[in-house]
């Protein structure tokens, strides 16, 4: 996994709550057996005026001019901001693959759905939970003064906007390190293979019926 490095970008504001993973990447694109190629279809239904199909070239499709991702000043944004319960619904990791493919490496929200939140860390995307007042201020700033530039510094757990305001955030230490170092967590778990062996041997004696083959 690519290491998460400090960067600055425009915040793309999507002012709604409960954005579900069906909206982030609609179901027809889930038929792919690949992990990449989803960026063109990120928020497909909101972003385009026609119905998207897998394998289609998105260049030249009619754009929904009202949708923020299509505004020149936001299109190159690499930070997404929303409200409560971002990423709810389906467990599809394709939602994170689509965000990452588009270039989004940080998502700001007042809360995230649990499965989406976990999926982010597996793909080098940082989900940041901010208090409602901070999110309110950032949305207001965007609306009143135009696009907000922000520096994301994971090592320091800080977000700094162009006006010099600093927002601190909390993050699980293990997940932070995985992102900063770009670690493969399967390899990390396999370092504990001995513990897993011991557990299995103990459990197989206690609950032998859980160790019968499904064949």
């Amino acid at each position, binding site marked *: 996994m690519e290491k998460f490095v400090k960067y600055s970008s425009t915040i793309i504001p999507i002012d709604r709550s409960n954005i579900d993973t*069906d909206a982030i990447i609609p*179901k027809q694109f889930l038929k792919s057996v690949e992990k990449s190629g989803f960026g063109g279809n990120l928020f497909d239904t909101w972003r385009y005026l026609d119905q998207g199909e897998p394998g289609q070239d998105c260049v030249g499709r009619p754009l929904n001019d009202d949708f923020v991702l299509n505004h020149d000043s936001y299109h190159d944004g690499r930070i997404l901001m929303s409200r409560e319960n971002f990423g709810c619904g389906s467990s599809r990791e394709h939602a994170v693959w689509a965000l990452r493919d588009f270039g989004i490496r940080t998502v700001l929200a007042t809360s995230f759905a*649990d499965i989406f939140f976990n999926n982010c860390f597996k793909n080098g995307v940082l989900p940041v939970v901010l208090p409602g007042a901070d999110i309110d201020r950032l949305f207001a700033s965007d609306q009143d003064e135009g696009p907000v530039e922000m520096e994301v510094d994971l090592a320091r757990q800080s977000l700094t906007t162009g006006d010099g305001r600093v927002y601190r955030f909390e993050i699980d230490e*293990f997940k932070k390190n995985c992102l900063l170092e770009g670690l493969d967590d399967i390899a*990390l778990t396999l370092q504990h293979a001995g513990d897993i062996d011991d557990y299995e041997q103990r459990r197989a004696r206690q609950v032998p019926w859980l160790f019968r083959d499904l064949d």
Partner: protein
Amino acid sequence: MTETTLYDKLWDAHLVRQSDDGTALIYIDRQLLHEVTSPQAFAGLRENGRRPRRRDTNLAVADHNIPTKNRSAGITDPVSRLQVETLDKNCAEFGITEFAMSDPRQGIVHVVGPEQGITQPGMTIVCGDSHTATHGALGALAFGIGTSEVEHVLATQCLVARKMKNLRVNIDGRLPDGVVSKDMILAVIGMIGTSGGAGYALEFAGSTVRDASMEGRLTLCNMAIEAGARVGLIGVDSVTIEYMRGRSYSPQGSDFDQASQAWLELQSDPGAVFDLEYNLDASQLRPQVTWGTSPEMVINIDDVIPDPANAPDKVRSQDWSRALAYMDLIPGTPISSVVLDKVFIGACTNGRIEDLRAAAAVVKGRVVADTVKQVLVVPGSGLVKKQAEAEGLDQVFTEAGFEWREPGCSMCLAMNEDCLEPGERCAATSNRNFEGRQGYGGRTHLVSPAMAAAAAIAGHFADPAKL
């Protein structure tokens, strides 16, 4: 001894290793796989030269994008076909048991697991699907994961996790006529909101839950995720034990006796403390219908469409307005007057035999309304289908003008050809009413099987008890 919750017990029994930073390595007893969220996980194994740690504890079944009619013709959509064939190949290569499309046991993964006894009390169960919460009805710790974690479990039989908090919803009282488990869970979601259970394991308790059949319990836990909770749970009792008895993959003989003794311990202790608790009076419930594009946007059959001006805050007011525009509904309209184009009965929420019986009981001797273009009845598995046919339910449905289909996820998420056309309105027994969920521009209202059947007959939403 400290009194603990069911979730605490399941967690403790699966703890392989606790780290100082609060993360833990948790052992996973069973993984269920389907075609949509597994291909990249198998590819990851291959790229890294890894093999499944316990291939024999995985079960694969294709359900999301397989056709529900003309099965003998195969899958016509080449992209869907490739995905299902990829699952077949991966299972063959890695030695994983698969119920193929032609297998009579094939069906929706969350219907097949319990039905086969592959889901067992006390297990940890994962699947690359958020509705894995379903299996918690049997006292298993079951939750949905992403594809990276599917690969992680295949490779290590473990997950890195943090313990969740404990939430309990107590449901007491006798359900009125025409009100079922689906109405209970929709009411719970309406009460606590779609993020109300985020970060929690949600246990359902109380006399109404105890009185519920296993199928009703599976419906409750299925939609825990729509209340934000990744885990749904119900303590083991005699209903659970009797359900497990004699299933194909249930423990047999003395194994079963030993197992059922252990399973009966899987309950929250009477004095266990929950981080958060809610109570719901089942006797006051009415049949539920969602009106918007989030499952928390739900009202009683007797209610009118709400006005965004009355929303609790500005953000919600905007969300309601957007939902009403998408759903093409006007505040103040009685929900019972809303007219439907299609009806879908099925899904991992309500595709079990009891659901089909409830729908058939409403339909018997009646016919579909002229204005309703299509009613799909999609059994949750091949065995549910067979049972329904043995009881003559398929006849009841087809005589009423409903279509009787092959098992799969079908129009719950419309990855196959079963879908809504833009602007069409559907009463669905599934679990999500998100924009475009059942098809581009489609409008979904979530209801119980009896309400779906009543709506198909009446042409609009109707209280099944009053039809």
